């Protein structure tokens, strides 16, 4: 590895430069075995490791150019000769045979790659778990147990834990870690098995740079690596280049391949003398590693490695199934949450409350720690969220910049959104669905910065260990480095969660659209019926009124015509005809008036109540016989924002009623007063007239509801219905209190702050 001299000395050596290191063609091997490279056809020896003499008892130079079978025959290793000549080789190393020389046993393993047969002679291990004659028979029970136990496991975590334990048991390493990559190739230790006295790395995170891209690529090809002794002295190949290709030998699949000095330094800093790793693939891609550590040197026999590889593959297969199943179950679970939320929404009067009133489900839907629902201009939050102004800034930014996106997600809002640094702690991760363009309606979920969610089995406050200080590379430093890489980032949103959010969005949009359609249909229907009503009253006002006018007119003409010839009875009849037609005409006018009150838009203005009431009082008083004894008592009346035309009609009706029904009293007494609270003015008009039975009070305000006959008190039965409509249009209420022959009090309220009511929305 070339280290730039300008590098600051304390910086973690950028492991990224390892990306350029020739790890597949190191030109040397580890010394716990001997490697020969043969021509694939002739089996002539082209290159040999410098330590070949240990086995062959002749100088390396003398080996080169000779056919390996010949050499082996001279050594009486006939079994191996047959194996080599008959083996069907590919990139997967296969065991050929054992060979003994000078009291040392070697196992020969061979593979074919790029036209070269690479034969590796590994010295048989001694003093370890499987020393001596390791065979499949020894390993089979272990492997079978592992496979049996796999069946009973529920989760990926359990699977990983068991793999860590089994692989450590088979190999006898001191510690095994199951290390899982995230989508950005950062890794996390998700399971660990360790012997006494060795440090735990469980839950530690490592940045992607710890295992550079080309190493990951190699791990994907060659699933097993062993470093038998980190203190090894590399043994070079002789000659350094392949004599025919003039290129270094590709050792991608070689067991003895010498490893990067940076990696060795890393292992040293961890206090390790030996390590092995087994690749876990998922759908042919690197998913993770089982990493084995020992503080003493350690070789692992080929059979054990094969067993480990087998376990690794079994792990991979089950992993695909477990993850697939877990993902499927997760989706099902999320779907059931969506269904619950939809149910809650259906129960609420305002459907959106169904989300806000069930924060647990809303958050569980996307595994978020906070959420905000922005709807019809309101912003409501549950869980841990940024403050409202920040959320509003976020949705404004979303609607300005991400209009096309129905679902927006990011793991790093601080990077994506200008000014997003605000969101770093509580909301680095944002998942947002747009419900309606109107008012920027969104459901937004938040996830905190990932660092806050990281578990750490050690003491997170504990400073980097003394041993790690001054070291260029160390897992704790990696962890610190990783923390830097995930600053301002949340855990990624899973596809199932994004899908669930999208599903919820579709349901919400559906509801919103349906509501809008219902409203539009209702308003179209209202407009249509309003138009019809207008046409109807137009024709009523022309055609129904005219005949009454004619009756009255002709009765008058007849009376004029008869002149003196009309006797008293004739005149009375004519007058009755005219009166009857006249009241019918008045009735038509009142009805039209009533429908107009219903249809008219409010024109609000400040109306001095006292002046209006006084004017109406005078107008009415003028029509009364001068002999009538009337006492008016009018209290202080406020100025109110209202429609003057409608309000005039209200007062005219109430005051003329008061006059009318007290007509038969010797002395009439009419009181007008007002009481105000913060929100409402309550007006009251009372008289000492005929009154009514309180049980009929509810009927008074209905159309054509009368409590007296025409002979007692004339009237059309529409006046109070008009009053109720007009007051209702202002948002107020009307009611009455009375007792028979003891007068009546009519009340109505008006809001202190005028509001436009629902009726006006259709205008």
């Amino acid at each position: 590895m070339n280290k730039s001299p300008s590098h600051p000395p304390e910086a973690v050596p950028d492991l990224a430069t390892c990306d350029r290191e020739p790890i597949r063609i190191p030109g040397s091997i580890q010394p716990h075995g001997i490697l020969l490279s043969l021509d694939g056809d002739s089996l002539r020896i082209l290159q040999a490791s410098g330590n070949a003499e240990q086995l062959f008892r002749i100088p390396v130079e003398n080996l080169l150019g000779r056919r390996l079978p010949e050499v082996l025959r001279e050594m009486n290793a006939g079994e191996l000769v047959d194996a080599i000549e008959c083996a069907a080789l590919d990139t997967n190393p296969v065991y050929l045979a054992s060979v003994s020389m000078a009291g040392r046993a070697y196992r020969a393993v061979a593979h074919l790659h790029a036209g070269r047969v690479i034969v590796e002679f590994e010295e048989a291990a001694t003093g370890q778990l499987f020393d001596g004659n390791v065979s499949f028979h020894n390993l089979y029970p272990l492997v079978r147990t592992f496979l049996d136990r796999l069946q009973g496991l529920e989760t990926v975590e359990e699977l990983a834990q068991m793999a860590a334990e089994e692989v450590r048991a088979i190999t006898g390493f001191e510690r095994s870690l199951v290390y899982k990559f995230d989508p950005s190739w950062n890794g996390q230790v998700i399971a660990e098995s360790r012997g006494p006295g060795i440090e735990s790395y469980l839950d530690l995170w490592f940045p992607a740079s710890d295992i550079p891209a080309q190493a990951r690529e190699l791990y994907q090809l060659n699933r097993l690596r062993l470093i038998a002794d980190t203190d090894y002295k590399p043994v070079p190949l002789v000659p350094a280049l392949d004599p025919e290709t003039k290129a270094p030998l590709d050792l991608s699949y070689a067991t003895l391949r010498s490893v990067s000095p940076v990696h060795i330094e890393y292992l040293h800093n961890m206090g390790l003398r030996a390590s092995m790793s087994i690749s876990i693939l998922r759908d042919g891609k690197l998913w993770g590693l089982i990493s084995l550590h020992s503080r003493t040197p350690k070789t692992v026999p080929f059979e054990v490695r094969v067993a480990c590889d087998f376990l690794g593959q079994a792990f991979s297969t089950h992993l695909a199934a477990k993850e697939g199943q877990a993902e499927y179950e997760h989706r099902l679970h999320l779907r059931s949450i969506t269904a619950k939320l939809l149910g809650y929404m259906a129960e609420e009067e305002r459907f959106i409350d169904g989300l806000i009133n069930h924060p647990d489900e809303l958050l569980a839907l996307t595994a978020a720690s906070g959420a905000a629902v922005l709807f019809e201009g309101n912003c409501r939050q549950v869980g841990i969220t940024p403050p409202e102004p920040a959320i509003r800034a976020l949705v404004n930014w979303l609607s300005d910049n991400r209009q096309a996106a129905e679902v927006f997600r990011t793991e790093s809002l601080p990077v994506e959104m200008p000014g997003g640094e605000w969101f770093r702690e509580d909301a680095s991760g944002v998942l947002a669905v747009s419900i309606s363009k109107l008012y920027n309606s969104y459901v937004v979920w938040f996830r905190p910065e990932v660092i806050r969610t990281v578990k750490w089995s050690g003491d997170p406050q504990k400073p980097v260990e003394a041993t790690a200080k001054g070291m260029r590379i160390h897992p704790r430093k990696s962890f610190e480095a990783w923390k830097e890489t995930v600053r301002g980032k949340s855990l990624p949103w899973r596809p199932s969660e994004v899908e669930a959010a999208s599903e919820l969005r579709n349901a919400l949009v559906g509801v919103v659209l349906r509501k809008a359609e219902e409203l539009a249909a209702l308003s179209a229907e209202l407009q249509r019926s309003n138009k019809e009503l207008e046409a109807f009253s137009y024709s009523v006002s022309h055609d129904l009124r005219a005949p009454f006018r004619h009756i009255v007119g002709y009765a008058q003409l007849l009376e004029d015509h008869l002149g003196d010839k009309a006797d008293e009875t004739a005149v009375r009849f004519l007058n009755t005809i005219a009166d009857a037609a006249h009241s019918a005409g008045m009735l038509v006018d009142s009805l039209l008036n009533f429908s107009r009150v219903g249809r008219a838009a409010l024109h609000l203005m400040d109306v001095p109540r006292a002046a209006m009431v006084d004017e109406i009082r005078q107008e009415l008083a003028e029509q009364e016989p001068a002999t009538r004894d009337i006492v008016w008592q009018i209290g202080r009346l406020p100025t109110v924002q209202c429609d003057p035309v409608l309000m005039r009609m209200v007062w005219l009706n109430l005051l003329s009623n008061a006059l009318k029904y007290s007509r038969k009293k010797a002395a009439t007494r009419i009181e007008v007063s007002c009481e105000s609270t913060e929100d409402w003015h309550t007006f009251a008009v009372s008289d000492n007239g005929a009154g009514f039975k309180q049980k009929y009070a509810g009927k008074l305000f209905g159309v054509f509801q009368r409590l007296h006959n025409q002979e007692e008190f004339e009237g059309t039965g529409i006046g109070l219905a008009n009053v109720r409509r007009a007051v209702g249009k202002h948002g107020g209420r009307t009611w009455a209190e009375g007792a028979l022959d003891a007068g009546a009090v009519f009340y109505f309220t008006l809001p202190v702050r005028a509001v436009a009511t629902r009726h006006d929305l259709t205008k």
Partner: protein
Amino acid sequence: MLKPILLVEDSGQDVELTLAALTKARLANEVIVLRDGEEAMDYLSSQGRYATRARGNPALILLDIKLPKVDGLEVLAFIKSQQRLKSIPVVMLTSSREEPDLTASYQSGANAYVVKPVRFQDFVKAVQDLGGFWAMLNEPPPGSVRFRRPE
């Protein structure tokens, strides 16, 4: 000679009642009764049946809104669009109390808008006021002869 009052009214009863009211109101002008909007426009532009009528404009037009063929608002718009006719006072005389009619009438330049009251006495009074005001008291447009109330 007094200029005539033009009454455009399709209802026979209303014609009779209006004439009675005009008589009661002691207006001495001749009243020319036209029964629909088309006839009114023919009269005013001296066309059709009225091609040979005596020249000159009426002193006042009492115009019903709901009329067969061409309605009162159209006749009004026609009158107010003609240089020769637009100074004739037009009183919209109608059963309708509907706001759109009222608005449209004033927008088209009606000089007054009267909802025919149900009570005959009130109608007589209204006609009297109107006729008196527009046919007598108002400064008549050029070409009209000032009406003098007969004693």
